[in-house]
């Protein structure tokens, strides 16, 4: 039987295509109370007075919730393990409003119309405060965003709210200043990245009800059901045993559903009223009042010798966490820890900086998680260095990059909130990735530019990337497998399928161990009452961490089945073999089919429910690696740009499901292309998001995506399930730098801020012309 590494359609694709009920909003109770949030029109303000005298008497208005209704317990919505590496700096509702879209109050009504009407009748008197909208001025700004005394860090993360500092960090290996002074060539540049939006197709949704045991049952479109349960319990003082969180089908997450958003309101309303409630975010709310990617300023310095030997890297980062500090430290850490080890042969490397509070929509987890920002800076700078050294950028990379069997001191130093974990790269096929990518894009013939006409030019560019596979010693996944009569299995996992295909991949791993077909594995994810603990779908952890848990559980069940069958057949288990359908004793020749075996132990002989539960915590986080190559065409006059071809060659170990892995890479590439080119975030001078809908925030459409080539190099990660590493995030990292490099190869201008819009290129060209005059 071979299930992994074959083409397997996803286990849920057919039902979803046919429109079966599955997503959070499909499960709201009829007659649910409708919750609507009144949101701050100001970037920074204090609520002076709320007049709800016209709204409260409206028939159908049930509650108007303000800060006074909630226990004043600071918490973080980040949706991480406990204790969180994010500051506890948020209250469900507060008197101070810290961004346009922050929650002022909640209206609970019997219908959508009444809730809307009530919202329009509530008058709020605000004291408008000066906002901080330029994150470069936030540190030690006279305006304080978090003066409240109750907030705290859970352990040292460099949190200093008196300085508008959510987190800060510094590290150095060797002596960067000394090394740089001895270098022949220095490249020093400043880069900016923007507050990209996730734009998962399903907006955030939650609903709640009280079940017949008087417990609170929440359906949530979330990546982290177990964290949601804990955070609700802590912030609302509801006993955790009384909460059940069910994650039904989720319509995309990309990190945007790692955190807790509307869940707090639905939980509170239903717990108080004992009536079902529902809260679905509008697309506008998803844009302005959930999360964005952390915008960053990155100062990157590279030092090298004439022959191309890279000696030192210095990366100093300023990150904008917005109004609250969710993922402030950890995203920032990944900007260093999953980027800088790419060039592990340097004598010195320094990384550090600040994560500041501003009056922007909070930033949070987003696929790439800091690595895409760091990658844009580093991989742009490497090309700039190659230009200065007059070297082929591929050769410069090949000389200096990480190779199999090597390590980087950074792995041991930088973790996510704690120290890191030392590891050797047992698999690192960057050389193969580059060689194959080079051939697929036609680098030899096309670099740096080709096919120039009077108005257009074509060019190529590339970048390398790495990510991780879960957070070592922190991320834990578990699985339970049980054997049923007639010989099929239930696989219960806390791992959260959010569209990435984890239900299919985890089922494949179980099927492979149990030597059965995919249809015999019935997977269920995830439900805090029914499935074992899993941290959830983030940090590229599911295939590697949860997959290893499934592997262990399936192996344990198989051993139990063999023991039991040996008892039943009255033979030694050592000589009994199981091929997925038959148990056969090699000594006596006695045998029993799985069907008969499972039916007998269920109904007639030595009855027993066979099941196994296993957990897995990674001791390392083997990085997937990739090389991304792009071919573009640019209009030399207008600087309009089209992506002709994007080649991804990936080392993610051995993919469990080739097509789904390809889907992860290609989806991530296109999301990365959006960040690189089209997703331009604009705000008003008063901090109001002007690109808060899909008319003005432009994600790539299918017309911009002409040709993607995705290949996986042969690689086998021993510590991963069937040789697999992660693949969910690494794809997003290369497009920004690859595109910026291609633009320079085309036109000789270097764009250092994202997105790389035609207009920016146009003005860079204009400046270049005027400098040449």
């Amino acid at each position, binding site marked *: 039987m071979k299930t992994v590494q074959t083409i397997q359609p996803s286990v849920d694709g057919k039902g979803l295509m046919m429109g079966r009920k599955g997503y959070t909003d499909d499960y709201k109770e009829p007659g649910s109370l409708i919750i609507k949030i009144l949101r701050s029109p100001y970037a920074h303000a204090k609520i002076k007075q709320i007049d709800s005298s016209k709204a409260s008497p409206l028939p159908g208005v049930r509650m108007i919730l303000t800060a006074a209704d909630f226990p004043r317990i600071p918490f973080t919505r980040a949706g991480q393990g406990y204790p969180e590496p994010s500051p506890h700096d948020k209250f469900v509702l507060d008197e101070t409003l810290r961004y346009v879209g922050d929650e002022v109050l909640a209206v609970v009504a019997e219908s959508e119309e009444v809730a809307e009407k009530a919202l329009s009748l509530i008058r709020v008197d605000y004291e408008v405060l000066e906002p901080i909208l330029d994150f470069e001025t936030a540190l030690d700004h006279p305006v304080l965003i978090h003066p409240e005394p109750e907030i705290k860090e859970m352990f040292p993360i460099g949190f200093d709210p008196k300085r508008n500092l959510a987190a800060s960090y510094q590290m150095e290996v060797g002596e960067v200043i000394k090394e740089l002074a001895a270098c022949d060539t220095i490249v020093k540049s400043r880069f900016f990245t923007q507050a990209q939006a996730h734009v998962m197709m399903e907006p955030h949704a939650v609903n709640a009800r009280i079940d017949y045991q008087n417990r609170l049952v929440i359906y949530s479109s979330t990546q982290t059901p177990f964290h949601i349960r804990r955070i609700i319990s802590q912030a609302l003082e509801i006993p955790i045993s009384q909460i059940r969180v069910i994650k039904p089908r989720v319509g995309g997450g990309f990190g945007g559903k790692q955190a807790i958003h509307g869940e707090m309101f639905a939980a509170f309303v239903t717990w108080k009223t004992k009536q079902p409630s529902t809260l679905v975010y509008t697309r506008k709310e998803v844009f302005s009042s959930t999360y964005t990617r952390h915008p960053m300023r990155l100062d990157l310095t590279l030092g090298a010798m004439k022959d191309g030997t890279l000696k030192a890297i210095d990366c100093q980062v300023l990150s904008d966490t917005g109004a609250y500090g969710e993922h402030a430290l950890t995203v920032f850490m990944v900007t260093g820890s999953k980027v800088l080890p790419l060039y592990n042969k340097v004598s010195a490397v320094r990384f550090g900086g600040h994560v500041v509070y501003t009056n922007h929509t909070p930033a949070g987890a987003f696929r790439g998680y800091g690595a895409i920002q760091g990658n844009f800076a580093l991989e742009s700078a490497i090309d700039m260095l190659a230009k200065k050294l007059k070297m082929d950028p591929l050769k410069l990379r090949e000389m200096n990059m990480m190779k199999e069997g090597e390590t980087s001191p950074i792995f041991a130093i930088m973790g996510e909130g704690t120290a890191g974990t030392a590891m050797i790269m047992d698999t690192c096929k960057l050389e193969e990735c580059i060689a194959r990518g080079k051939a697929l894009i036609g680098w030899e013939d096309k670099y740096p530019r080709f096919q120039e006409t*009077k*108005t257009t030019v074509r060019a190529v560019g590339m970048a390398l990337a790495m990510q991780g596979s879960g957070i070592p010693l922190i991320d834990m996944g578990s699985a339970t497998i049980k054997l049923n009569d007639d010989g099929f299995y239930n696989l219960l996992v806390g791992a959260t399928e959010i569209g990435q295909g984890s239900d299919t991949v985890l089922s494949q791993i179980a099927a492979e161990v149990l030597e059965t077909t995919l249809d015999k594995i019935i997977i269920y994810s995830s439900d805090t009452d029914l499935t074992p603990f899993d941290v959830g779908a983030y940090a590229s952890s599911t295939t590697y961490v949860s997959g290893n848990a499934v592997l262990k559980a399936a192996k344990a069940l198989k051993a139990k089945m063999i023991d039991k069958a040996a008892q039943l057949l009255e033979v030694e288990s050592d000589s009994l073999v199981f091929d997925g359908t038959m148990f056969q004793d090699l000594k006596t020749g006695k045998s029993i089919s799985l069907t008969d075996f499972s039916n007998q132990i269920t109904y007639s002989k030595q009855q027993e429910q066979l099941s196994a539960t296993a957990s897995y915590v990674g001791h390392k986080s083997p990085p997937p690696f990739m090389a991304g190559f792009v071919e573009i065409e640019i*209009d030399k*006059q*207008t600087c*309009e740009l089209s992506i002709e071809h994007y080649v991804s060659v990936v080392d993610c170990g051995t993919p469990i499901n080739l097509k789904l892995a390809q889907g992860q890479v290609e989806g991530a590439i296109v999301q990365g292309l959006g960040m690189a080119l*089209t997703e*331009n975030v*604009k705000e008003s001078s008063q901090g109001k998001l*002007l*690109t808060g809908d899909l*008319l*003005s925030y*432009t*994600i*790539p*459409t*299918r*017309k*911009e995506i002409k040709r993607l080539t995705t290949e996986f190099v042969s690689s086998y990660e021993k510590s991963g399930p069937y040789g697999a590493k992660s693949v969910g995030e690494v794809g997003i990292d290369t497009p920004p730098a690859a595109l910026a490099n291609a633009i320079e190869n085309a036109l000789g201008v270097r764009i250092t801020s994202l997105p790389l*819009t*035609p*207009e920016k290129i*146009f*003005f860079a060209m204009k400046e270049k012309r005027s400098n040449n005059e």
Partner: protein
Amino acid sequence: MLTEDPKSVILGGGLWLRLSFSEVSTLIGLEKLGLDRIEEDDQWIKLGSQVTLRDLQTSTPLQSLAGGILSQASEHIMGIGVRNVATIGGTICGRYGFSDLLTALLALDARLVFFKTEELSLKQYLAKKKPLRDILLSIRIRKTPGAGYFHKISTTALDFAILNLAIARRAGKYKIVVGSRPGIAKCAENAMEYLDQIENPSESDILKATQLALEELTFSTNLKATQEYRQELARVYVERGLKAVIGLEY
């Protein structure tokens, strides 16, 4: 009903009702008036005001009219679902600055037939400060043969135009229209007049006309682009468009 109640609204496609109006007392539908047909005679193509953008995109007579600029303009507007519902009448009466259709229709010198008001050219209609409280019944376009060029610059295929332009050369007469400046589509009258007097414009005539167009059209900055970039886009594409309709290479 329309004339009596200021909060009554005629439904075109009706898709942006929620985005465009906060309060509407009466919505007036025109579905049953048979205004959803494209008809033609020897001289004119007549488009009912309820003709959808998808109809414009796929209409054979329109695809061959002046290089098919009206079909092309329709094709680049949002998704097919929107094009199946949004109507030419709704687009004209919406008078959106970013409209691609208005740009193409101006280049075709479209004429508007109303229920009460006498027939107007689209140019005259757009020059009016206030929208008419009247019902647009149909749009008439002369079938004069000739060449056309349409171009839309946008960030993605679903996005509104950063700039759009349509150029037509029919029976020796030129139309040069630039829209989403971000102001509403406008003709470059001086440039058109200049070219109208030249039988076979040379490359330098085209440059001169382009210069005239840039001098007479105004551009400004909004979310999508700066004034300077828009101006440059207009310069490049007016020149390219003119070369295309005149048959010169660029």
